[in-house]
């Protein structure tokens, strides 16, 4: 369980001091920095991180919302995220889909996400994370948990754990499970 799939929100909890999972996320990211645990996540997380940061920076009109400072902050956030030594999962290549009159070639991750949409009712980006986590688990059997602060994922943990073949844990549950201390 020292290797886990890290949802985007865990890193944001780390840099958001008023977040309910802030202290747990701080411990988890510290453990990543110290090489005590290892994380994987979808490349989609980089995009989500950039998008959330950009939207909020603009909305808060920090330093007048100047583009240059905003861009510098986004880049710095991505740098700090990547500095945790996370393995970013990119399911490369295209896959053909041919069902009756449907003939299309699409990124393999989309293909996997479509298959997952038959099993669960998550939304598009959630499906892509789920597909990436499933792929990560298939290529790394040591991956022991999907760690997220997302209420929808956590409320459907039984159903989603079966699909991903690993437990879905909140940052608090993960931290406690590993015996990490604040």
């Amino acid at each position, binding site marked *: 369980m020292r290797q886990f799939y890290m*949802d985007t*929100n*865990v890193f*944001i909890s780390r840099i958001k001091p008023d*977040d309910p999972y802030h202290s747990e996320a701080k411990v988890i990211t510290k453990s990543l920095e110290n090489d005590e645990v290892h994380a994987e996540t979808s490349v989609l997380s980089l995009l989500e991180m950039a998008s*959330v940061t950009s*939207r*909020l920076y603009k909305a808060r009109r920090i330093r007048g919302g100047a583009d240059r400072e905003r861009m510098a902050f986004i880049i710095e956030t991505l740098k700090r995220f990547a500095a945790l030594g996370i393995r970013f999962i990119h399911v490369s290549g295209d896959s053909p889909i041919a069902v009756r009159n449907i003939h299309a070639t699409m990124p393999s991750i989309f293909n996997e996400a479509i298959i997952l949409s038959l099993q669960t009712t998550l939304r598009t980006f959630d499906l892509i994370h789920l597909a990436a986590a499933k792929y990560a688990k298939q290529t790394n059997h040591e991956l022991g948990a999907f760690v997220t602060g997302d209420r*929808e994922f956590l409320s459907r943990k039984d159903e989603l754990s079966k699909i991903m073949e690993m437990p879905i844990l909140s940052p608090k549950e993960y931290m406690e499970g590993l015996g990490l201390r604040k």
Partner: protein
Amino acid sequence: MEILNIKVEKETKERLERLVKSKAYKNKSEAVRRMLDEHFREHPELFASDQLVDILTEADKMSDIEYYRLAAEIFKGSRTAAELVAEGRDRYQ
């Protein structure tokens, strides 16, 4: 101002002369100068790589204290980290 010697097609030169004759510009130099300035203004992407280097340098200068202080200010609020991310996943709207 700097002097720039440029070669243009005959047709371009004639069109510039027509613009000067119609008093759109004082002379050919002013016409070319203003057209170049407008083009540069409308296409900042032409200089994107220069800008990116500057932005990266600026990001590198950010200390830990400064970064976390700014992050706290940006992300503060009643919505949790999970809700902020979920918003981008087309939920919590």
